[in-house]
């Protein structure tokens, strides 16, 4: 299945799991008519309205109904149309889904997937463009996954649905309709395993979701200048495959982390901290964090473009990083 779009690969992964397990169902606003971006388009034809369920505009209770259904024998998938709307459901997500297994002393499990769509693209403005993955990664009991390719969307949604813990599955709307030349390949379907997408020897560049594309393009540009960048796709934010990152840093001695989320308090800070704890002696320069500035996402086209890190910006900052020397500072 070469040359598949992300949205189709994702839908196919959901459909495969719904075929394999009658307990799997999907709930959300307009999911029976395909959802806002067509991820669930056509699923109702195969699985019916009993398993592809339109809900009222009640995020907190959509989430709560899914948590309750999960502890009572179902394996629900919840679609939150824009990640920004999950703020309305954080009580059920953070205080209930994430904690029921722990608080019950292991009596109960919450096998559910929370699909969210995020990213600053298309001028949707401050309430429809945030990247909130650091929130989810901060809450013990929630797993968080953010695929950057169609093949991984398919693999990881299947692994997420099969997982017995709540998994926040983060989709970027800038990826949905892009054709993935690699298409679907048989591959491992597990959470918590990073993927070295491009091998290199001068700098380790860690990313995930749509920013992975910009990173790969920046690495290509830098290769033309004789700089060899190793690009790692984390894929899974919780659990985090820090070992793969450390192993790469031991080889390259330089680390940059790029994501679309605001830099302050972002995943980049966590990765930087862990690497300095575990591999300080291997670092030849401070860990570089690349991400959005500390501002709500802007709607104006020019501002929005400046808000999201891009290929040229990433390449320039990596280039500058190479000139850092411990003696002189940057």
């Amino acid at each position, binding site marked *: 299945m070469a040359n598949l779009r992300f949205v189709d690969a994702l839908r196919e992964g959901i459909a495969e799991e719904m075929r394999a397990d009658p307990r799997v*169902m999907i709930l959300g606003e307009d999911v029976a008519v395909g959802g806002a971006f067509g991820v669930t388009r056509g699923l109702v034809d195969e699985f019916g309205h*009993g398993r592809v369920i339109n*809900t*009222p505009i*009640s995020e*907190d*209770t959509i*989430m*709560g*109904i*899914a*948590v*309750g*259904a*999960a*502890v*009572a*024998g*179902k394996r629900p998938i919840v679609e939150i149309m824009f990640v920004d709307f999950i703020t309305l459901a954080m*009580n*059920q997500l953070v*205080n*209930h889904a994430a904690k*029921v*297994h*722990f*608080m*019950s*002393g*292991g*009596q*109960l*499990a*919450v*096998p559910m997937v929370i699909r969210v769509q995020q990213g600053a693209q298309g001028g949707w403005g401050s309430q429809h463009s945030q990247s909130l993955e650091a929130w989810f990664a901060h809450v*013990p*009991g929630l*797993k968080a996954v953010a695929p950057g390719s169609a093949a991984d969307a398919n693999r990881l949604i299947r692994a997420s649905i099969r997982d*017995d*813990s709540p998994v926040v599955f983060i989709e970027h709307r800038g990826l949905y309709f892009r054709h993935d030349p690699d298409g679907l390949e048989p591959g491992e379907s597990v959470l918590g395993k990073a993927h070295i997408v491009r091998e290199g020897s001068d700098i380790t560049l860690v990313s995930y979701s749509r920013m992975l594309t910009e990173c790969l393009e920046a690495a290509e540009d830098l290769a033309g200048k004789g700089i060899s960048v190793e690009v790692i796709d984390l894929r899974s934010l919780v659990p985090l495959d820090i070992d793969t990152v450390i192993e790469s840093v031991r080889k390259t001695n330089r680390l940059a982390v790029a994501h679309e989320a605001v830099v302050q308090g972002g995943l980049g800070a966590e990765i930087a901290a862990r690497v300095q704890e575990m591999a300080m002696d291997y670092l030849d320069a401070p860990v570089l964090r690349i991400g959005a500035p500390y501002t709500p996402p802007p709607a104006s086209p020019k501002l929005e473009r400046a808000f999201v890190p891009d290929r040229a910006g990433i390449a320039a900052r990596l280039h500058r990083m190479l000139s850092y020397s411990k003696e002189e500072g940057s």
Partner: protein
Amino acid sequence: MAGSELSVDTLKSALHRMMLIRRAEEQVIDLATSFDDLIRGHYHVYIGQEASGVGACMALGPDDYMFTTHRNHGHVIARGGEPSPVIAEIIGRTTGYNKGRGGTFHVIAKHLGVLQTSAIVGGCVPMAAGAAFSIKKRGTDQVSLVFFGDGVLEEGAFHEALNMSSLWKLPLIMMCENNSVLPEGRRQGEYPSSSFAATQLADVAKAMNVETHVVDGGDVREVAGLLTELAHRTRAGEGPFFIESRMTRWPGNRGSFPELIGGPHQMDWTWDPGTADARLQDWLTNSDPVSLLCRSLVEEGAMTREEVEEIDAATRKEAEEAREFALSSPTPSPESAMDYIFA
């Protein structure tokens, strides 16, 4: 109401459960006040509300689900929970139902169908609707029952869950325990709150086309009768239902922490409220569900005072043994601190 048809044996067993809750809660208060380090934060007891929980749980079968709140100890025992693992859980021991991970706010017992106990006001209503949704999808005749306090109606989650459970006709029974009502208001009267605009709580559910009932939560026969009928109708696909169970607050619950006014309950107070502390007399006369049931059973000739006191002695002993069991149980080891993060 069908409640008057309950057999003497059924009423004796209801009285036993109610007294067991009372005695277990007294032990909880004593543990909290006698030790500095057993129950360190706030805790909530179910004294004075026993008839509501026991009467409601009498309508449930073994496969039904139950959800509750921060005031859960009594609900879990009403559902058939044993005082030993309940008290052990409250003081954080490995022998507690949740292996010490829940504490007073979160006693959960999967084997009893108690699937979540949430200390977030209103937090359990959407989850209980979710369990009802699972029942409906699986096509079984189970019921999902959720207990909550009147403050839940101030939360948005309640209104969303009310709408969705009505829209989807879920097998859900919403049992709102309003413990702010004066004795006469348990049967008629108004909601005396400065923080909720509706005069009648049940009107809110009516607006969403949910059938509503108001019941005297101090009368176990009334509660059991109503809930048995509604559980039956829920199994037949007629749910959801909303019930306002009205009761009068136990005077020991009026302060910020529970207080055993005059010490543990004495059966003499039941037979002659005038022998109790002045602060308790009116409540014992008009509102204490345990005393009301004891006196009516004796007046009706269904039980003698001696038989009632035998039940009381048995539940006292059971609660004392539960306390000892809990106190002699181990706390979780620090090495197990990271258990149960992920399933």
